[in-house]
């Protein structure tokens, strides 16, 4: 048996502290967004893994609320862009303006320079505006007037889109979809949870939204960076790594999938699994962590075979079939 290198493994204390912080954040978020525990876990996974999230759900499920609650619990900056058909790339990244007093051009940074960015209804803006996010999401910098400006860390994009209203929308291109670490589907809450939610919301002072003011700030931007650091150092067995890569590779040859996932999917699987392990309070990554985030990681990176699409099958069904057939690791 080979032990993990001692330098790699974070100390138990810092691990427990980080895990407690993450769980406290989860508890706070669950107070605000009722009945979406799975979605909250996924969003936190992306936050800890340093990835971006694409939230998909019909209107009224609390997508924007979730992001606002997250911004509230986390002490960093928060910006929001409502994507519209006439939104220009410079509205996102920023632009140079002429200052009459100094008679010089001054750079005016766009809403992109923040910690937490909510790109609401991202598919309503045309492709060029969507592409303005590409550089920021991958390289965490923005090039304005030939000058590369770094974006502060941590940086996380939460984009929302609505799967039913497709008229006048611009579907995200594959390259941009691949930049999102997770695509999270929001579904209707259970009956009991919906009861609770309605009770809470109607008690709130705002018209139809739960008040996020009473939520306490659990984390500062610095803490998030530390969480990310600790998560990336979590112990990972070779077998588990192999499982993640096998999953991603299987999508490329799977008969029900026309296009498989690229290497970014394997990377996202492992990072997501590390974040989930931290969220769970574990000291190492298990295959369960990989499997737990596999659907969210893979569903926007593969394309279902046309025959199955015509048959009315969903990507999730095909992926579940795949997950049910790839052997899990054991030693």
């Amino acid at each position, binding site marked *: *048996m*080979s*032990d*993990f290198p001692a330098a790699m493994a974070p100390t138990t204390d810092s691990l427990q502290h980080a895990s407690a912080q993450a769980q406290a954040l989860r508890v706070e978020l669950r107070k605000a967004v009722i009945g979406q525990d799975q979605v909250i876990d996924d969003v936190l996974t992306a936050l800890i893994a340093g990835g971006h999230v694409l939230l998909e759900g019909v209107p009224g499920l609390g997508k924007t609320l979730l992001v606002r609650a997250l911004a509230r619990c986390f002490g960093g900056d928060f910006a929001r862009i409502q994507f519209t058909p006439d939104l220009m790339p410079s509205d996102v990244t920023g632009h140079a303006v002429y200052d009459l007093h100094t008679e010089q051009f001054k750079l005016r940074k766009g809403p992109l320079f923040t910690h937490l960015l909510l790109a609401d209804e991202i598919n309503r803006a045309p492709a060029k505006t969507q592409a303005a996010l590409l550089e920021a999401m991958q390289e965490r910098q923005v090039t304005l007037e030939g000058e590369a400006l770094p974006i502060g860390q941590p940086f996380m994009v939460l984009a929302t889109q609505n799967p039913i209203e497709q008229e006048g929308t611009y579907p995200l291109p594959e390259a941009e979809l691949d930049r999102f670490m997770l695509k999270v589907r929001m579904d209707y809450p259970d009956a009991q949870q919906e009861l609770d939610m309605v009770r809470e919301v109607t008690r709130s002072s705002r018209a139809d939204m739960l008040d996020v003011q009473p939520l306490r700030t659990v984390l500062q931007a610095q803490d998030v960076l530390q969480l990310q650091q600790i998560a990336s150092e979590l*112990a990972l*067995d070779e*077998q*588990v790594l192999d499982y993640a890569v096998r999953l991603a590779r299987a999508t490329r040859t*799977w*008969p*029900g999938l026309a296009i498989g996932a690229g290497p970014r999917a394997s990377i996202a699987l492992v990072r997501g699994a590390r974040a989930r392990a931290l969220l769970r309070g*574990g*000291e*190492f*990554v*298990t*295959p*369960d962590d990989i*499997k737990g985030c596999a659907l969210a990681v893979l569903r926007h990176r593969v394309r279902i*075979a046309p*025959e*199955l699409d015509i048959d*009315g099958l969903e990507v999730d069904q095909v992926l579940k*079939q795949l*997950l*049910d*057939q*790839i*052997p*899990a*690791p*054991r*030693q």
Partner: protein
Amino acid sequence: MRLSDASVVIRPRTAWEAMDLGVLMAREYRLLLMSSWALVSLPVFALLTALLWDHPSIALFVFWWLKPAFDRLPLYILSKALFGETPSIKQAVRHWPRLLKSQLLLSLTWRRLSLSRSFVLPVSQLEGLGGQARQQRLGVLLQRNAGAARWLTIIGVHLEIGLWFGCMAMFYLFIPDQVESDWDWQRLALAAGSDWLWLEHLTHAFYALILVFWEPIYIACGFSLYLNRRTVLEAWDLELVFRRLRQRLSSVAPLLLLVVGLMLIHASPQVMADDSNARTQLSTQAASQSVKTVLEQPPFKNPETVTRYRFGDEKPAAKNKAHGDGKLPAWLQSLLDSLNSNTFKHVGQGLEILLWSLVIGLLALLVWRYRDWLRAFVGRRPQRSPKIVKPAPAQLFGLELGIETLPEDIASTAEQLWPTQPREALGLLYRGLLSRLLHDYHLPLKSADTEGQVLERVHQLQQPHLLAFSDELTRHWQNLAYGHLLPPVSAQQKLCSDWRALFRSGAAQ
């Protein structure tokens, strides 16, 4: 059988014309044919449906397979009606059981899938031939028109399917909008619960109704093809002409004979008188000479020059055979002889078997090669029968799980292993647990299940002791396997004693 009584015009026709005649015949007796068919087949269909209510596909398949048994009735009616003895529905249906007696088993087994079924049915039913005689008869009959008979069956299959789909489409169009909008097609296709069995039976009933319409026509066409073939073979039309001639002339025949006789008597002396001189001058030799020259000319002899390739010198071999003194060595001769004999028949049969097995093997290989594809696109329907118990996998997650691969006393073996090989010891316990879950508790574990999913399944068993033990063992196992953390010594004792408490008592019960 009196051909002169036939109600159709008997003359040689082309195959398609003959089938057209069959359609006409079916139209002529449509009421009788269809109602008798319906009287016989629909009760059988209803009975099958009632018996196999849970397996609609099997019911339809059995009904379809029984078609030759019903086919005999329309053929009986048509054969009677051809000579004007049209039976009533009651008579026909009452006669049906008697029709089934001959060769029913054969026609329901290996003759069932014959494409020229309707064409050859009259041979066994009307002529009553069987065995070798039938084979010879078919050999003669099938020399012509066999292709048309096969096409008839193929067209019939397509017509049945087309009409069937048409019926279903019509049924669908008649469903009111508000009922139809409630249907979830995907659920209908995938779940196919017992609520929808009646719908499946209904569509099958459409098929039975289609057969009431089509099957008599099919049989009539086959029968008319058969009649046409026999007309051509046995010159029925000429026989009819002669009979008619005889009938017409029977009254005037004596008079006619008298007139012809008188004319011959009057004419013959003149003919003989013309060349009497030439005849007397012929001597016997000259006559035989002239006969020979005539015989040497066409049409008695037609010499032809044929140029072809020939294998070696054939004549000496033949001569050798005749003379018996070997210019060729004996072994060559015997080889040549054996080439002509039946010895190589077996070799040929062997080769045939080899080639067929090659084809079958290739097909199997093809199916195996595309098994993933087939699994994804063909085998996507949910399994209907949960009764089929899958054999427990012998190997799961790379661990041997067969009972025989595990030691008799797992706890003791683990205790022995612990000081030296803790990893193997814990692995053994975990394997033992999985094996117990698979074999004793019949949990449907798959190799894709992670430890967490195995625990979830144990949770569903609702056995608190087992759950607590599995929980603890899984935790230690995960710590060791993925976290590389050794469990404390105290855990070893506890796990082993828990194992004994759990599975000893379980075994004792």
